[in-house]
């Protein structure tokens, strides 16, 4: 059901995706990354939080539905995997980086960019109030719909999402163009 929905997603979509646990999330991102790389000729950006970039590579290679040649795609630049803490807090603006990736994808002859980002990094800060404020601030800085060559998924572990107030949850769900809840 979810996989069928993912197949229908068009360029420009900005989804919020809430997953039940890491095992379920791994299945989804492995399958979707394979599809975007191999069938839809897209560049894929993965920003994990609850697993290392090497663990992600391992799952992409070894997941029975994926079996992705990670080394090949990383070498040609069509698969980019960065720890989300580095991506969000230790470098230039993530959206500036994504814009560069979109240009890079065009040079590579790709049809677009898909970004799959775990938002868990925003829950790492010390002060709870600031933390919630900063995730709302970040999300609000993104448009509800991206320009045509980009589609993005802001992914939340259900336990992180449940830390937000009802008002914040509603605002996040309303702000994103579309939402997906993935259960086990």
């Amino acid at each position, binding site marked *: 059901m979810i996989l069928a929905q993912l197949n229908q997603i068009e360029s420009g979509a900005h989804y919020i995706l809430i997953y039940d646990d*890491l095992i379920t999330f791994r299945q989804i991102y492995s399958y979707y990354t394979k599809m975007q790389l191999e069938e839809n000729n897209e560049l894929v950006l993965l920003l994990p939080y609850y697993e290392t970039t090497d663990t992600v590579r391992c799952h992409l290679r070894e997941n029975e539905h994926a079996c992705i040649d990670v080394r090949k795609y990383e070498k040609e630049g069509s698969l980019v995997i960065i720890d989300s803490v580095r991506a969000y807090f*230790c470098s230039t603006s993530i959206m500036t980086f994504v814009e560069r990736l979109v240009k890079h994808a065009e040079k590579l002859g790709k049809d677009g960019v898909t970004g799959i980002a775990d938002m*868990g990094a925003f829950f*790492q800060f010390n002060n709870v109030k600031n933390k919630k404020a900063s995730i709302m601030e970040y999300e609000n800085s993104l448009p509800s719909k991206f320009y045509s060559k980009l589609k993005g998924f802001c992914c939340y572990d259900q*336990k992180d999402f449940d830390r937000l107030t009802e008002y914040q949850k509603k605002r996040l769900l309303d702000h994103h163009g579309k939402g997906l809840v993935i259960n086990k």
Partner: protein
Amino acid sequence: MALNNESIMIVDDEIDIATFMKLSLQKWGFNVDSFTDPFLALEHFHLNSKDYTIVISDIRMPGINGFEFVRKIREVKPKIKVLLMTAFDINTTVFSEELLATKVNGFIQKPISLKILNSEVKKHTNGIKPITRLTKN
């Protein structure tokens, strides 16, 4: 039956890691309880804090991160020894800022060898003597 009432609590949302560490430390004679759900671990700690001398917690866990978990543990038992473990780079600005607000006794970098795990735990468990198991003649 446990011969020593001082125990080690392990908290890691990855069941393989929590189980591996628990079995390894038990093999060396420590009393160990492991949890994959930090909230259950906290609840258990509230009820049984006197039993624990050391807590070993992962940092990146959904729902509550390791730093927050440690602060909540310390509200219950301020002098408890705490080791944080992570598979990620700890030399980052974000990490340093978080660390300033949380006192910890040490770090364990994952993946960890059994030898290092044993020595790290022994360094911080003066009060805990591994249980001497009776062997059959």
